[in-house]
């Protein structure tokens, strides 16, 4: 029997319809989709913050509604807010004390040190949270979510709104967390943010999973781009008009046959290239397919 870190079984709530998923330890699963697709609701249900109208969420085999489950699942919301007037170290100490509330557990100091190192906040440990920039607030969100050796970490828009360097740094830290055996479920409005991180992706639209699978297989779809001298009056079957000319998915046909179709339509092909579909295009395709 597989020991899943997180399972959602036919979960239905406001904005979410019959969603099921299972996450293995050490796996990174990305949920993408436009605003209102149900990404944050999905995470809040997985974190036990929202009760589903139907279905069940389990963390390490326990229903997430059990208080004990919160020792295993951490959550960082999309707009991280922490108690004011506290330093980064004090904020983490506050949360660490909640994890060390039973006799014989590790001291909060050790948990805080680990969390600071994990999130790269050691240098900012004595700064007050009001003085933190967006990237450091996200790091603090990650630190508190992973605090106490959580086995599942849920990250809502953790990589959104960050510059490229901060994003790369956080991506590395999240990958490191997963490499240590922590299951990560993260959402992003910007699919490109997850392309280099998630092993598996699910695309949500209007509360339903419309596509799901390993990222490698989703990104295996190839597209032929054709640059034309002049825009065509009408595209050949299977093609669509772009700014530079035409493009078409290569599903089930060769480049040569697609180019031959262009020539058959008397289109002056100046250049052509084959590229793979981006995750953003896959999201847009599912949106346009309505």
């Amino acid at each position, binding site marked *: 029997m597989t020991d899943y870190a997180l399972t959602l079984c036919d979960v239905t709530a406001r904005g979410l319809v019959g969603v099921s998923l299972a996450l293995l330890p050490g796996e990174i699963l990305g949920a993408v989709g436009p605003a209102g697709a149900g990404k944050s609701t999905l995470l809040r249900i997985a*974190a*036990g*913050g*929202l009760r589903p109208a139907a279905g069940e969420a389990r963390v390490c085999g326990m229903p997430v509604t059990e*208080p*004990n489950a*919160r*020792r295993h*699942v*951490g*959550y960082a*919301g999309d707009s*991280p*807010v*922490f*108690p*004011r*007037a*506290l330093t980064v170290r*004090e904020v983490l*100490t*506050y*949360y660490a*004390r*909640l*994890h*060390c*509330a*039973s*006799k014989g557990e590790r001291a909060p100091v050790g948990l805080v040190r680990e969390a600071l190192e994990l999130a790269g906040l050691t240098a900012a440990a004595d700064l*007050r949270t009001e003085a933190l920039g967006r990237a450091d607030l996200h790091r603090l969100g990650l630190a*508190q*979510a992973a*605090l*106490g050796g959580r086995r599942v970490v849920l990250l809502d828009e953790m990589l959104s709104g960050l510059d490229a360097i901060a994003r790369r740094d956080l991506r590395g830290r999240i990958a490191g967390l997963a490499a240590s055996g922590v299951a990560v479920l993260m959402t992003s409005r910007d699919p490109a943010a997850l392309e280099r991180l998630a092993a598996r992706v699910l695309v949500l639209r209007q509360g339903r999973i419309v596509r799901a699978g390993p990222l490698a297989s989703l990104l295996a779809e190839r597209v032929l781009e054709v640059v034309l001298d002049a825009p065509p009056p009408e595209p050949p079957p299977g093609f669509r008009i772009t700014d530079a000319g035409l493009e078409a998915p290569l599903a089930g046909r060769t480049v040569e046959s697609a180019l031959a179709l262009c020539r058959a339509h008397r289109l002056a092909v100046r250049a052509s290239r084959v590229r793979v579909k981006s995750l953003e295009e896959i999201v847009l395709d599912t949106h346009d397919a309505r």
Partner: protein
Amino acid sequence: MRFLRCVHAEWLLVSSRLTRTRLGLSLLSLGAALLWLHGRGLDPLTVVLQAGALGSIIGASGLAGSEGDRAALTTALTHPTTPLAVATGRWLAMMVPAVVLTIAVAAAIGWQVGMVVSGVVAAAAVGGCALAIVIPLGTGAAWTLFLSIAVAGAIAPERLVALARPGVVRVAAASALELGPALWHYRDIALGNLGAILHALAWTGLGILLASGFVARCR
């Protein structure tokens, strides 16, 4: 034991808020104002009761009233604690400075054990009520409660009721003064009135339970 340790975690907020925010200065200003009023003739028991009650309202506002504090409860609840532990911890955290202020004011105007007990019990009851108000409604509601307790605490209840129009309004005012955590109840604690003590305990418990209910809704 686990519950108590979760309650204790909330105490971390007290020292930082006292030294790094306006909370400490506000409590000092309240103490100074009450001592000044005592010098102008306000009776010692009223001064001590006001110190406890108003100190706890300022504490509730400073420790749980801001929008950031209320939003941060959502994050706290993703850790292994309970809404009741959070509410109890915040109540105890805001009680600490209020009790210290009560004792300091009592020491300054003439120490009497009964008077100090009245002040501490008033702080507990009004603090419970204040916490149940500031968590859902914020700092603005705390200041409304502050003004109403400050005014109602200094005037005899009969005079306040007489100010209201006869009829439903007067009955409502009398009921609010009778049922609410009005300071006139707690004057009798100094005389050992069991009813007044039970009234205060009821407000303390009710306040914490209501506050924990509002904390749970932050999830």
